[in-house]
């Protein structure tokens, strides 16, 4: 079968560093025409960097990429497309006000003579949609399209450029199961048309259902490639994890006290259901699961940003009302949100103001905010967190990602919470700062704060948490004690693979 054919794309020994961080340390990838190829790896394994090299966003420092027998011209998204590589990101970026036809052909609208030929463009687009087996109308605008449909438009765009390599980065993460089925159908269509499809997913059941070959990456390098039928879910997980994780996250022993947070039978239609758990004083509980499994939704509901339909949330024996974050703050709950730029910070305000915003009442006198108090508070926390900044008046968006995260944490720790919820506390920050954030959380637990931590990074959850709760598709599907948890067990439960 495939092994006898000539490959469409060959990447050999690709290396790429960003500053001091080595993102790719020797990645290989070979794609044949007419295959769906899974690219697997934990977060931070280098998949995104590899995809971006193919998309023309990054240039690799060393190694080679050959496409259709020729050297691939790197470093331009436009050139990458012209050479036949199309990348479909998890969140497609269409033009909401333009028609689907124009979205497919944007920047290279079909013309007759000098003028745009709308009719030809619409017909061509509808033909592509038909070819993909979907019912979409090229004359409607992209506004309001579901993510699944937006992906289809991106795929149609890829086909219209005659792409031979189509990369899909976690395309199923935000799709319902019916939409996933349709996407699979489309992917198989592309396979039948002799395209090479790269499929990045964390859901192993999908990978095994769809893909003909699998490449696994770890720490920036390719650690294995094989036809799917020669692999099992267990062997893939072993390849993905492949390292001891516990030493990285020093955990301080803390005295476990009374129950601080008690969640019973919590449910929100279409998001999650029947969620029950407890967090005690001094305890760190990890909430693990894939992106989209409902983790963030649960903590948002507990904090009161979102409502819930069923169940109760009790804090120190007092029931909390749903949908009222300021009441939750008063009762001693703090949430460090997932997306710090969007939800956690006022990006153009100063560091002082950001640190103090949760504390304005205490810092004010007769409703007037005392700036001096603001600065004092910020300086105090800045020192505790070894924040690197010039002056407290600098806007937050001048800080590095890691330091921004510290400001968000400072802002919430300043409220002296009894329950601290952190959602993806170390996403996109460097190893050094990561360790500082972890140390900080551990110390807080020692002080008797109950901590609920949501993270996609398994080593982080396993290193930090006393107990790990695992979510899948809005349900709690597993619970492990610190000592009983292994990465293999957690991934199996989270992906719905057979139990180890």
């Amino acid at each position: 079968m495939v092994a006898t054919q000539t490959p469409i794309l060959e990447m050999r020994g690709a290396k790429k560093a960003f500053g001091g961080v080595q993102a790719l340390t020797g990645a290989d990838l070979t794609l044949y025409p007419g295959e769906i190829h899974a690219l697997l790896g934990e977060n931070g394994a280098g998949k995104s960097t590899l995809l971006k090299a193919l998309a023309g966003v990054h240039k690799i420092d060393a190694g080679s990429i050959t496409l259709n027998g020729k050297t691939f011209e790197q470093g331009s998204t436009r050139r990458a497309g012209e050479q036949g590589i199309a990348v479909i990101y998890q969140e497609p970026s269409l033009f909401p006000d333009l028609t689907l036809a124009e979205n497919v052909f944007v920047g290279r609208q079909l013309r007759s003579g000098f003028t745009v030929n709308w009719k030809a463009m619409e017909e061509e687009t509808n033909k592509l949609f038909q070819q993909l087996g979907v019912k979409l109308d090229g004359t409607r605008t992209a506004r309001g399209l579901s993510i699944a449909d937006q992906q289809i438009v991106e795929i149609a765009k890829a086909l219209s450029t005659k792409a031979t390599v189509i990369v899909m980065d976690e395309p199923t993460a935000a799709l319902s199961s019916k939409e996933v089925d349709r996407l699979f159908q489309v992917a198989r269509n592309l396979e039948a048309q002799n395209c090479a499809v790269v499929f990045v997913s964390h859901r192993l059941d999908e990978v095994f259902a769809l893909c003909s070959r699998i490449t696994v990456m770890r720490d920036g390098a390719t650690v294995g490639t094989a036809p799917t039928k020669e692999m099992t879910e267990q062997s893939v997980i072993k390849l993905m994890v492949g390292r001891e994780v516990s030493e990285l996250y020093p955990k301080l022993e803390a005295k476990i006290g009374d129950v601080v947070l008690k969640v019973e039978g919590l449910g929100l239609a279409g998001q999650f259901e029947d969620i029950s758990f407890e967090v005690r004083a001094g305890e760190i509980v990890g909430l693990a699961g894939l992106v989209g499994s409902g983790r963030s939704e649960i903590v948002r509901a507990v904090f009161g940003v979102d409502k819930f339909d069923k169940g109760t949330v009790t804090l120190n024996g007092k029931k909390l009302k749903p949908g009222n974050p300021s009441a939750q703050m008063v009762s001693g709950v703090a949430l460090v949100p997932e997306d710090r730029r969007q939800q956690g910070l006022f990006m153009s305000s100063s560091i002082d103001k950001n640190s103090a915003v949760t504390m304005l009442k205490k810092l004010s006198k007769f409703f007037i905010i005392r700036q001096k108090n603001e600065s004092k508070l910020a300086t105090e926390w800045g020192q505790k967190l070894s924040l690197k900044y010039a002056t407290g008046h600098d806007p937050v968006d001048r800080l590095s990602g890691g330091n921004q995260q510290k400001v968000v944490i400072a802002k919430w720790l300043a409220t002296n919470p009894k329950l601290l919820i952190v959602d993806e506390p170390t996403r996109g920050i460097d190893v050094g700062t990561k360790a500082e954030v972890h140390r900080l959380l551990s110390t807080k637990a020692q002080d008797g704060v109950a901590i609920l931590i949501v993270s996609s990074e398994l080593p982080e959850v396993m290193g930090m948490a006393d107990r790990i709760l695992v979510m899948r598709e809005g349900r709690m599907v597993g619970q492990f004690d610190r000592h009983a948890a292994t990465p293999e067990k957690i991934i199996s439960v989270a992906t719905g693979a057979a139990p180890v």
Partner: protein
Amino acid sequence: MKSLVTRFFRVRELPVFIALVIVVFITGSANPQFFTLSGFQDVTLGVAVVAVLAVAQTLVIVMKHIDLSVGSTIGFSAYLIGDASSKGHGFWYCMGLALALGLAVGAANGFMVAYLKLPSLVVTLGTLYIVRGVFNEVAGGNTITEDMVPGPINFMGLNTFFGIPYLFLVAFVLMLVVGFVMKRIRSARDLYAIGSNLLAAELGGIPVARRVFLAFLATGAVSGLAGAVLLARFNTAAANSGNGLELSVVAACVVGGVAIAGGIGTVYGAVIGAILLQAITMALGALGIPQFWQLAVNGTLLIAAISLDRYLSTRVKPTSIMGAK
């Protein structure tokens, strides 16, 4: 395939057009004067200046930018035309001067917005004041009088072509040309892409800075040339000519469905919007309603237009072709 009827009802300019028809009929039945040829000529002549500027403004607003300097530019240009003509220069020389002024202001705006990445609201507010300031210095207390206006401009201001004022024809032809370009020329389609999703436009390889610069340049050029229309309309110009016009222009665009949030709208809508605002002003005048109420009605209409927009955009149903969540 959608039927012609559905397509017709999806036309964005429809509500404002219907509003225009209603206004015309109500006023016409209350005051038959409104339905006469002279009533028609009053409205079309009155709207010409704002319509020309609204067509140019559309180029900028669809990119999610704004150009507030057009009122100063058109006024200064009108003055320069009259001034040059009174010194014995010919018609084409005067128009060249007007174009040069417009290009200069447009290039300055475009450079600062496209390449220095400064916000267009602030940049063009700045050039509004700068141009007006220079204008005041140059004009002093002088006034351009009818005898100083170049012949062809004077002629166009006073005459009609089969009953249609020449000035309105200028606006109408400009609308048709720009309307065609914005629908059918690739580089002009980029303006919509930029206004709709700037990030995606950049990722998609659209030369964003160049397009933004050229759009501001074109808007400036039209505003400069439109000085002739302003001069023809009033046969006079002084240091306060064109003052505040920019706001009428933006209002006309928004009422006509050119979304201030970018990405949507046509020059046809902008012109219909201008006509509607003009017709209402005239109608209220014809019905003997005081000036204060005319402005208040225009303001209400503006807010109504943007509310309708908001309502329509939230009403778009998410697709669920395959039973999405």
